C-alpha cells in the first residue's frame, strides 16, 4: 500500500493506482475549478480532456489520470 496526501488529508491506496482513482476513491469529486470557477473532475480518464489537472509535489497542471501514486506524494486540488 502507498500513502499520499491530498489537500492535507492522508489517502492509502494499492500500488499502481492512478492519482485520479485515488482521489475519487477518497470522495474527492472536484479536482479543479474552471476558468469561471465551476467545479470539475475527471472526464476522459485517458489524458485527453485535461479536466483532472491537479498540483502534485508543487508542480501544477499535472494530469491525475495519467500519474501513478507514489509514496509521500502531495496532491493539491485547484
Amino acid at each position, binding site marked *: 500500500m502507498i500513502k499520499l496526501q491530498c489537500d492535507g488529508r492522508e489517502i492509502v491506496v494499492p500500488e499502481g493506482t492512478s492519482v485520479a482513482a*485515488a482521489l475519487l*476513491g477518497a470522495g474527492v469529486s472536484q479536482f479543479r475549478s474552471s476558468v469561471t470557477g*465551476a*467545479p470539475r473532475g475527471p472526464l476522459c480518464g485517458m489524458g485527453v480532456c485535461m479536466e483532472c489537472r491537479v498540483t502534485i509535489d508543487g508542480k501544477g497542471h499535472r494530469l491525475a489520470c495519467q500519474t501513478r501514486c507514489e509514496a509521500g506524494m502531495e496532491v493539491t486540488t485547484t
Partner: protein
Amino acid sequence: MKFDVVILGAGPAGLAAARAAVRAAHRTGAPVAIIDENPAAGGQIWRGNAQIEIPPSVRFFAPTRVFDIRPGFSLETDSHGTIETSKLILATGARELFLPFPGWTAPGVFGAGGLQALVKSGLSVKGKRVMVAGSGPLLMAVGATLRKEGARVVGIAEQAQLGRILPFLKRYPAKLPQAIALRARLIGVPYWTGTWPVRFEGDVVTLSSGRKVAVDYLACGFGLVPNTEAAQLLGCRLDDGFVAVDSKQETTVAGVYCAGEPTGIGGLDKALEEGERAGAAATGQPLNRRRSQAGAFVRDLAWAFHLDPRLFDLAESGTLLCRCEDVAHSELAHFREWREAKLQTRCGMGACQGRICGPIANHLFGWKPASVRPPLMPVTLETFCRDYSGRNAEER
C-alpha cells in the same frame, strides 16, 4: 537517438506493428522503438494488460509525450529529447466523443470508456449506482466491467435504434457470441435503445424517455473520435476525418504509415491486422495479399450506431461546449466557422487544444477542424525551451 522505425502508440495496432517490424530487424538489426503517453503498454482497450508483448529488442518509451514532429522525421518528446527515425508508424488510437447536454460538465459525469479507464487504474465502484449511456459496442463492455467490480449498473442507454443494431449483429455472426456473453453478464440490467441522457442535475439523470434515475456516476460516451493530430501535423491527407492510407498502410506522406482507429473506427481485429501490415511494410517485408474485410466492417459499424441528429440539440443556451475556456452554446451559435469563433471566444484554445470541443462543434455546427500546430500536447516551458525553441524558429 536514432531508429529505423518508430511507432507512435502502444495499443493493439502499435504492438502488432512492433511485432511485425522486429521480424525484419532480426535480420537487419534495424533498431525499432515504440512510444506511448501512458505509463504502460496496451492502449485503452488492454490498458496495462497488453496481449502482445513488446519484443525485448524494441526500445519502449513511456510515459512519453510527443509534442512536435518534423519532416525526416524528428520527434520532440517531453522526457527523452529528440527521437529520430526514417520510418514512422502512427498508431495513435481514438478518444471518446462527448456531446453536450445540461449538466454534462459536473463532476460525476465521465466518459464511458473514461470511467472504465479509471476503474482499471484502481478506482473502486463497489456499491456505486452507475448509469452507462451514449453509443456503441463499448457501452455493454463498460457495463459488464463495472458490474464485475461491484457497481450497481442501473441501466444502459444506447442512442442507436434496435432496428439497426440487430441487422448489424446478424451480418457479423462472429460478434454474436461476444454480444451474448456480455448480455449474460448484464442480466437484470435494462438496455434501452433509442434512448439518451438529456439532463444531469444533482445526482439525477433524466433520459429522453422521460425516465429519471438517481446515480453516483454517469458514464457517457457517444462513440469514438480518431486521434489524427500527429498525421495532420505531418501533412497526411485525411478523407472525411480519417487518415487516408494505401494497401500498405502508407499515408500520403512517404515513410509515414498509419494503423488502427485513425484510418477508420473498426476495433481490435482491424487494429491488429493493420498494425501487422504497417510493421511489415515499413521494414520492406512481403505483405499478406488476403483482401481485408475491415473497410466493410467500419462502414457497417458506423451505420448501426449512427448518431441521432436530436443529440445535437440537447445543449441549452447556457450549456458549455468548451470546457477549458467555459464557452457556452449561446456564445458560439452565431459564428460561421471555427477560426472566427476561436478568435472571438477562445473556444478550443484551452488545455485540451480543441480535442473535446472540436468534434462537438463539428457535429453541432458543421465546422471543419482547424489546422494542427505544435505543440501537439501541452508541455512545460522548461521542455519547450530546452534546445527546441531556437531551432524551431529557424526552421519554420
